[in-house]
């Protein structure tokens, strides 16, 4: 007559309430975190911002292709060469900001001389390793008379986006753009189309994008 009493801990009426409370608490925490993140850029916008940059062209009374410090001060974007006066732009007058990439040979004149003097054309091999990637920052702004101006800076790789965000946070017009050519060469497009068509044929005419038969690594690009 011993009966085993099993207490079944199933979901009771209070379980749902506890779940709802937990979900609400989680939502509240996430909202607060998102709000904190949104407010963070405002704090950063007031903090001074300064990086090393190369002025390519565009700033008034500033030498082309000169190195200096690019910084923000209140609502001004400033560029200063060492020992020279500061050139500045009102950030609110910036109409557009474009990011791009550029590779530039490092070493300057000594590198060029060394490459030219290298025997048996080995200087060309040095060129393969003597280039460094930079971000190009192109700003379009208007002056007091409504005249259109453009200015180009070279900054270290990865810093272009930081500068862009800083400018937008300080009042530059929105709409930062990637200044990359989107069109591929005709041969690249044709080769890609050929691969796609063959894969479609092999898969029975069904359009697909996966490497179900041959991995993409198995394809030769025809260049070697």
């Amino acid at each position, binding site marked *: 007559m011993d009966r085993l009493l099993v207490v079944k801990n199933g979901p009771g009426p209070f379980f749902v309430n506890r779940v709802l409370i937990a979900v609400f608490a989680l939502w509240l925490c996430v909202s607060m975190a998102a709000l904190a993140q949104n407010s963070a850029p405002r704090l950063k916008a007031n903090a001074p911002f300064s990086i090393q940059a190369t002025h390519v*062209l565009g700033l008034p009374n500033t030498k082309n292709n000169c190195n200096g410090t690019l910084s923000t001060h209140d609502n001004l974007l400033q560029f200063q060469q060492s020992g020279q006066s500061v050139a500045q732009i009102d950030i609110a007058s910036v109409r557009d900001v474009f990011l791009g990439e*550029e590779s530039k040979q490092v070493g300057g004149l000594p590198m060029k001389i060394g490459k030219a003097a290298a025997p048996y054309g080995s200087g060309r091999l040095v060129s393969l390793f003597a280039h460094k990637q930079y971000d190009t920052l192109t700003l379009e702004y208007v002056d007091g008379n409504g005249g259109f101006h*453009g*200015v*180009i800076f070279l900054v270290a790789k990865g810093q272009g986006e930081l500068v862009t965000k800083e400018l937008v946070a300080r009042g530059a017009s929105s709409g930062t753009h990637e200044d990359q050519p989107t069109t591929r060469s005709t041969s690249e497009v044709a080769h890609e189309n050929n691969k796609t068509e063959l894969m479609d044929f092999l898969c029975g005419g069904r359009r697909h994008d996966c490497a179900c038969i041959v991995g993409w690594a198995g394809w030769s690009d025809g260049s070697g």
Partner: protein
Amino acid sequence: MERIDPGHMDLAHSFQVAIYENLLEELAKTKRFKQVLREGDSKAGQLPNLLILKTKLVKYTRGSESQRAVTTVSGATKLSVQSQLITRDGNIVLDRSVQGNVRFFGSNLRATHNLARNIAKVIKQSEWPGPGRLTRNSPVNPDSGRHTSPAF
């Protein structure tokens, strides 16, 4: 001077700005114009005998400085534009094709400097009817003394 019209070409904005700024500088050096104004400058409306310089990109070959350094013979950056000098009434006084390249030494943006210099050179060497006071807005062809039919 109007901004560069890239047409249907995918020309980076850095190149467009570089051509524009270099051209302003080179045109000022020609000393053929009393005043060179930027696009949107409010002073342009008050000037008589205004000429508008329009530059449209016709051909662009994106090169590579690395490739030029390694191979020497390939990787050139090439720019070709159609330039028109137009009066306020819309009359074309000059219409030329101009090229600017960088083949051996120099960055890709060097091509914009060469292009601007060629445009300015053509304008300096060309003759057009009308009063002497002009405001530059359109580029000119390097083919001296030859007018071509409008391309735009």
